[in-house]
């Protein structure tokens, strides 16, 4: 096997491992929620792993990311400590936001914030990008449901006019909450909006991490060069319902883990070993869940009220 082939396989294995980590984490969170030990309205990113891993692998330390209401995968793929993320979901003092934010309000240095408001972070991302250092980029994630909001329109319009370095990434799973895209708009794929605002736009199979990376690299280069924003639509499947516990439909096809594993098997990796890795990751994530629940102290309410307002330095 040639060096470059080996290299490619190693890179794919690394990405696969990352995706497994994300998947296992979400499975553990789902388990915690089922057992009523993790509260709140959870929106899991199962099925979106290739997008999270693909996008994050292309970013530099100066780049920033804005997420939406399905943020766990983004935060993990950006390198946040899974223990801190799990602790945040469990409302613990050691959580990313000391238990104040929870599932939809994670914050970190690179992935700045998530949101519970559909389209809510898009204008914020544009503002951040407007003052970002030259050469850096801001990634703004959103779902296809957000494309019908006024916030989306205003954000795309401003970003294009002011040529802010934003890469808008739409994770299109064909559903906005409980209805299909066709029930929300006559516009077909979100990629068409590139044409409307005059910005480069691509659509890609979001279950294939290699394709995601190729598309992201192409568009990020344009964004970093200062030519203005770009739009990437990643088609994924929603493998779970809108929120955990909902009985409505979701898909069974389009699992990015399967896509990657088929490629690894074709490159000679033993399928049994792959299954074992999946298993191991899941066990590790479940152990993390248990450990956090058992050992991490709950968020302390006797905390100073200056957390509401920033102090003048």
């Amino acid at each position: 096997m040639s060096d470059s082939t080996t290299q490619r396989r190693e890179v794919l294995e690394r990405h696969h491992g990352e995706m497994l980590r994300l998947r296992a984490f979400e499975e553990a969170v789902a388990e915690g929620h089922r057992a009523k030990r993790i509260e709140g309205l959870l929106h899991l990113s199962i099925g979106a792993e290739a997008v999270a891993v693909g996008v994050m692998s292309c970013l530099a330390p100066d780049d920033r990311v804005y997420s939406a209401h399905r943020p766990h995968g983004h935060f993990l793929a950006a390198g946040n400590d899974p223990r801190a993320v799990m602790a945040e979901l469990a409302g613990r003092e050691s959580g990313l936001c000391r238990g104040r934010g929870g599932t939809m309000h994670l914050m970190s240095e690179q992935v700045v914030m998530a949101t519970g408001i559909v389209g809510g972070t898009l204008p914020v991302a544009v503002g951040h990008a407007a003052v970002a250092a030259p050469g850096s980029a801001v990634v703004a994630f959103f779902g296809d449901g957000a494309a019908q909001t006024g916030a989306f329109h205003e954000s795309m319009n401003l970003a294009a006019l002011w040529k802010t370095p934003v890469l808008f990434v739409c994770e299109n799973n064909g559903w906005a909450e409980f209805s299909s895209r066709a029930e929300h708009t006559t516009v077909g794929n979100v990629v068409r909006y590139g044409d409307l605002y005059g910005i480069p736009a691509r659509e890609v199979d979001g279950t294939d991490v290699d394709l995601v990376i190729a598309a992201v690299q192409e568009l990020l280069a344009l964004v970093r060069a200062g030519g203005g924003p770009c739009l990437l639509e990643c088609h994924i499947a929603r493998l779970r319902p809108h929120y955990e516990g909902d009985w409505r439909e979701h898909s069974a096809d389009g699992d990015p883990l399967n896509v990657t594993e088929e490629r690894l098997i074709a490159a000679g990796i033993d399928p049994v070993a792959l299954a074992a890795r999946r298993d191991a990751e899941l066990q590790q994530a479940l152990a993390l869940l248990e450990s956090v629940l058992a050992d991490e102290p709950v968020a302390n309410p006797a905390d100073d009220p200056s957390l509401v307002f920033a102090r003048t330095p």
Partner: protein
Amino acid sequence: MTCTAGGAGELSRDAAISILERMLVMRRFEEKVFELHDTQQVVGIIHVYIGQEGTGAAVLEAAGAEDLILSTHRNHGHVVGRGADLGATFAELMGKATGLLGGRGGSFHACDPTRGMLQTSAIVGGCPSLAVGAAYGLKQRGGGGVAIGFFGDSALEEGIAYEALNIAALWKLPAILVCENNSIGVGELKGDSYPRSILASERLSRIPEMLGIHTVEIANGANAAEVFAATCNARRRCLAGDGPVFIESPIVRWPGSQFVFPKSMGATDLEVAFGGSAAGREDREWTEEHDPLIRWAAEIAAAGHATKEQIRELDANVCSRIDAGAQFAMDSPFPNPVTATQRIFA
């Protein structure tokens, strides 16, 4: 001014004259408003319709009596063009008790509910969203009629307009959305102009188009014949249940509207339509090239719909009605202060 008989000549005499009369009422009304504003009888910020009559008069001629009309802060022309009583309209702008809304709306919110005009929103983006709603209501009631909303190009910068357009297309609502785009270039006056519509889209009409709305781009919003035909077609389409229509009407902005506070440039001299000169006017070039009223008067004469004398007579008639209306308003009382907080709830 040169123009062919083609424009006004395409319409019946009655329709053409009716459009001319609407235009004259719109124009002379605003000229009187300038006088009243200068003498502080109309107070506050006003937005004048001068220069946009070619679109407004044509749309309102094509509109049905059962249609619902909605406008924005630049509403005077729409209100009087729809046939509102002139005295009550002046009174409204002057805040008098005899005003269309009892003086509660003033210039920003003038409308005539007795003639199917619904709330005039002065919030940019408000009108298209309310108009889509009125269309939704008409569709639910099933009685016929369409909703016609007049708004400017800036409305499409607002997210709410985008949301409303998407819904109008999705639910196939009988709305005619007339965008009077008066931000298109005006030569050397660019520097002094209002901020233009600020859209990344190459063409404004790409937005409704993308959202699935049948879109019509008028070549020249000063061409009343073109706008009239487009509106008639749009009505047919809406009434047939085929969904909304977006009409973009590009209008070269009247120079008097270029400033933060509009500035009168003297009463329109109709003789310019008949070979007279606009020399000495501050808005000379615009008057000669872009004034829809001058253009339409010339077209009507050229088409043989009316003689110059008949047109002058119509204008004189309009002017005396305007004077009478203004006098009525000046003579009207202000509302009783005890009524200020009445009629909050139905």
